[in-house]
């Protein structure tokens, strides 16, 4: 057995520095869990305010404005800042352990992802102090969300928060996919992955494709509000365009918050029922199927917007179809209980409870899939109840079960079982008293601040409010229990539940490096040590590398803070903006230069990723999300163009000459980027630098040409707010221009590094990664040019 000889060079756990600069996945996981629980409490408090207001007819506890803000921010926080990050917290802590890795593939990116999330949440909360927080519902429907109808800075601040949140998610998705694909312990095949890791892999995949659509939508919203473009305030775009962009993200998002919970249940069930999960293969296949179908059901959120009847029917069918995989999952989980020996501890109570609630939420969802019933149920408390049964019942309850389940692993101590069971009982009863009456309120509109007594809705609302307080207060039991047990609980030992997955094969809490020796799996048996005899060949690999690893970095938090102030500066102007941008540039440069060594454990090299190193795989994954982003932007452009009665002909406003010159410049620069890589591989510093410099010059020429074109257009009255042709042109080419600018900044960095002698000694990877990005940006232009200039 290999003992860890060198102690990792990190500050101790009691030091603040440790928590600000850590890149260790378990530390970051704990940070995610704590931060998301904070947002859970904040959003829960808002929900209690809302329920208190609705407890009696004609109540005046909150006024309309306060009520609308509470409802809106409650939804945004719960969905974006609690449910997903809470699951990501577990994923951070548990996934590397479950796959026998020592950390995530990119520990620093992971820290960056967390700090972006942290600061995005601060932005979101700051919106309360800028006149008014967003108050148009978490769906931010346009044109209510346009500057004209919501003239508060608060919505801009919140939109900036959402944009930053999406940046955090994009960084995180890249990291998790590379980790799960590449860093599994030797012999740990996909089919062996525990349910939670499987569910996270699929969740992350959905995030990768869903969030760019929200990003495009939010960026346009931000541009509309801050720069005066017209996408969402013009009837040709407006409500329907926002609906498409939002719900293309929004429906997968429901499963993004649900799947990790299914993963948690899938891990808890076998442990406490003492039987392997029934039909795990089919559960995984069902998750994949549901993930794919979830991208073609968004129309059911738009059933009565007046869309074409055939389209309605198609979306009705896809929506009904998406319930089938969930049927398989539920049946398989229930089947697991047959001939089991169920130890009814808190984690499994929450897990089974969440299945029961999900069944109710799922069945009532079938009602909403029916387009005919939607003509009544839309916008009522039936909807509210349905999605709370799914998102609170199906998701949050299961994740709380996960918290009890993994608490001993994370803290090394047991919680108080009796208190935990009481918590389950109270929250389960409270939940149903809270949400079941809402099904009976199928006439009551959502999001109304009050109602008259004559409606007869008072009784059910009072009941729901009582349930809300029971459910809310019962959470205090959990906080008390976990807080006390963290210090005073019984020592848990490595595997208190007799579970079989790898996170239980190491001490509680696990050592800094998780496993002293990387586990090796062969023929269904996990070899935890490289003791005599078995798997010497496979196990040897882990021992050979003795890299002095880095575990802290100051840059992620600084970059995130700079991003935070940059966004704030966009709203507040000089000097905040200029200072923040300067700081950001320094921080990103520092991040790039920092010597950050990680151990490379590319154990799971298999087709199609063989020979593709982690960073390159990461770049590909990132570009996949960029494809969706630009598709959404172009989709929005095509949407408004098709809906507009008139549109300027090609050559009438935009100069084809300008566009053609820029096309030529950009394509040439792709060629020189290739030359740079070839020269670097050939070991020629001179030609590497020369090629990079040429690429830079060409890129600058593109930007200058673009700038003069913009200037001319604006001088001729073709401005941000002069109509949809201008709005769509400036937003789309602007987003592309930002990408070019980011590429140029990267080239400058590459040139500095090349001058120092980098890239030419077999380390040309970075130039290759840049090249991939640069080619992608060029390809985007190849689409933009004909779409905007020639057609």
């Amino acid at each position, binding site marked *: 057995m290999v003992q860890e000889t060198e102690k990792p060079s990190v500050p101790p756990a009691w030091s603040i520095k440790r928590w600000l600069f850590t890149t260790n996945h378990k530390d970051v996981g704990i940070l995610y869990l704590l931060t998301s629980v904070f947002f859970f409490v904040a959003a829960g408090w808002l929900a209690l305010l809302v329920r208190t207001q609705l407890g009696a007819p004609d109540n005046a506890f909150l006024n309309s404005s306060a009520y609308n803000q509470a409802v809106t921010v409650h939804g945004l926080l719960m969905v974006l800042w609690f449910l997903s990050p809470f699951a990501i917290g577990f994923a951070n802590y548990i996934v590397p352990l479950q796959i026998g890795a020592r950390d995530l593939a990119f520990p620093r990116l992971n820290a960056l992802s967390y700090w972006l999330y942290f600061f995005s949440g601060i932005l979101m909360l700051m919106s309360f102090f800028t006149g008014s927080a967003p108050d148009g519902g978490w769906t931010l429907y346009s044109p209510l969300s346009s500057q004209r109808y919501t003239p508060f800075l608060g919505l801009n601040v919140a939109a900036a928060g959402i944009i930053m949140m999406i940046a955090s998610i994009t960084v995180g998705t890249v990291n998790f996919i590379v980790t799960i694909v590449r860093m599994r312990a030797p012999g740990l095949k996909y089919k*062996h992955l525990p349910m939670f890791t499987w569910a996270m892999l699929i969740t992350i995949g959905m995030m990768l494709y869903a969030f760019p659509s929200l990003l495009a939508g939010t960026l346009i919203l931000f541009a509309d509000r801050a720069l005066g473009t017209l996408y969402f305030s*013009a009837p040709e775009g407006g409500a329907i365009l926002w609906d498409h962009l939002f719900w293309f993200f929004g429906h997968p998002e429901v499963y993004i918050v649900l799947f990790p919970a299914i993963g948690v249940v899938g891990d808890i069930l076998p442990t406490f029922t003492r039987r392997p999960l029934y039909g795990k293969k089919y559960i995984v296949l069902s998750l994949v199927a549901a993930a794919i179908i979830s991208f073609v059901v968004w129309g059911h959120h738009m059933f009565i917007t*007046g869309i074409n009847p055939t389209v309605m029917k198609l979306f009705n069918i896809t929506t009904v179809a998406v319930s089938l995989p969930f049927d398989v999952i539920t049946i*398989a989980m229930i089947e697991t209980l047959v001939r089991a020996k169920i130890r009814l501890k808190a984690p499994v109570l929450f897990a089974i409870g969440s299945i029961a609630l999900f069944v109710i939420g799922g069945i009532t969802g079938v009602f909403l899939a029916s387009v005919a019933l939607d*003509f009544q149920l839309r916008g009522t408390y039936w909807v509210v109840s349905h999605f709370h049964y799914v998102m609170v019942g199906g998701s949050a309850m299961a994740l709380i079960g996960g918290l009890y389940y993994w608490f001993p692993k994370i803290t090394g101590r047991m919680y108080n079982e009796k208190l935990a069971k009481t918590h389950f009982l109270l929250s389960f009863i409270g939940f149903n008293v809270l949400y079941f009456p809402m099904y009976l309120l199928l006439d009551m*509109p959502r999001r109304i*601040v009050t109602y008259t007594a004559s409606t007869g809705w008072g009784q059910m609302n009072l009941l729901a409010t009582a349930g809300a307080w029971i459910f809310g207060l019962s959470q205090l039991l959990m906080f008390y229990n976990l807080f006390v047990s963290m210090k005073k609980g019984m020592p848990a030992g490595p595997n208190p539940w007799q579970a079989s997955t790898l996170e239980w*094969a190491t001490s509680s809490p696990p050592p800094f490096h998780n496993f002293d020796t990387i586990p090796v799996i062969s023929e269904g048996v996990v070899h935890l040590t490289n003791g005599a005899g078995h798997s010497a060949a496979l196990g040897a690999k882990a021992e050979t590398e003795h890299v002095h690893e880095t575990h802290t970095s100051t840059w992620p938090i600084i970059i995130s803070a700079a991003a935070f102030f940059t966004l704030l500066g966009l709203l507040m102007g000089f000097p905040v903006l200029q200072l923040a941008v300067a700081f950001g540039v320094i921080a990103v440069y520092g991040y790039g230069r920092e010597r950050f060594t990680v151990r490379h454990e590319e154990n799971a090299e298999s087709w199609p990723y063989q020979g593709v190193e982690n960073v390159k795989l990461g770049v590909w994954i990132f570009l996949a999300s960029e494809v969706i982003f630009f598709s959404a932007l172009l989709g929005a452009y095509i949407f408004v163009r098709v809906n507009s009665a008139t549109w300027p002909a090609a050559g009438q406003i935009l100069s084809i000459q300008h566009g053609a010159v820029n096309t030529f410049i950009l394509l040439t620069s792709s060629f020189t980027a290739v030359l740079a890589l070839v020269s670097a591989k050939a070991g020629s510093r001179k030609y590497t630098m020369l090629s990079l410099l040429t690429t830079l010059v060409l890129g600058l020429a593109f930007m200058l040409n673009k700038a003069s074109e913009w200037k001319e257009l604006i001088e001729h009255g073709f401005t941000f707010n002069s109509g949809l042709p201008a709005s769509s042109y400036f937003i789309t080419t602007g987003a592309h221009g930002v990408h070019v600018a980011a590429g140029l900044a990267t080239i400058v960095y590459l040139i500095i590094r090349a001058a120092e002698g980098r890239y030419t000694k077999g380390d040309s990877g970075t130039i290759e990664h840049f090249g991939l990005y640069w080619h992608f940006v060029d390809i985007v232009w190849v689409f933009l040019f004909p779409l905007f200039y020639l057609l």
Partner: protein
Amino acid sequence: MPDLGNNILVSNTYETFTGLFGTFSTLAIIVGAVVLGLMTYLILRYRDKGTSTQEPEDAPTLGKLPAERGKVKTIAVSLTLSTTILVFLVFGTFGALDNILTPPKDAIDIKVTAFQWGWKFAYPNGYEETKELRVPVGKAVRLIVVSEDVFHNFGIYDYKIKIDAIKGRTNHIWFEAKQPGEFTIQCYELCGIGHAFMKAKLVAMEPGAFNAWYSTSGA
């Protein structure tokens, strides 16, 4: 069962909705009861009663990958069952939908304009008003719904009918009142601080009374 009002047939749309909703509810309650009942039974039957320390043969063990279990047959049976139910429901839905989307040819057209925060009703004879929408019993009424500002939703909950009101779009909905009476029209899409109070009254009148009122209005 959810409260479906006073069970008096107030409009054709109420009839369409309650019929379909009843079918859905019956099946939902049966399926829900079976699934939740089965779960409860299994938990009670197979809970660890602490009477023996014997574990199931395939109990999870650290260091061993769990055995694969699960029969395609079970999955297939359950899938077939739910597919059958769902196909049945989809056909029911499409039948009702055609009814909801196709107004009779002789329907009276009334234009409804949503605004922050109220409704404007414009009749074929040019009469306009914002407080009440008056319609005759026994005659189809087609509403042409538009918005002049933000996204609203026109709903009459006693009639179980709604339609979005969106700027730049013209949406249609129709109904036929079956009983005279007064009903609430309300907005079902958050549209700003006046959302909860964006209401109007629907007055369904006997045809004679309606004609008398209509011929003296707006002229």
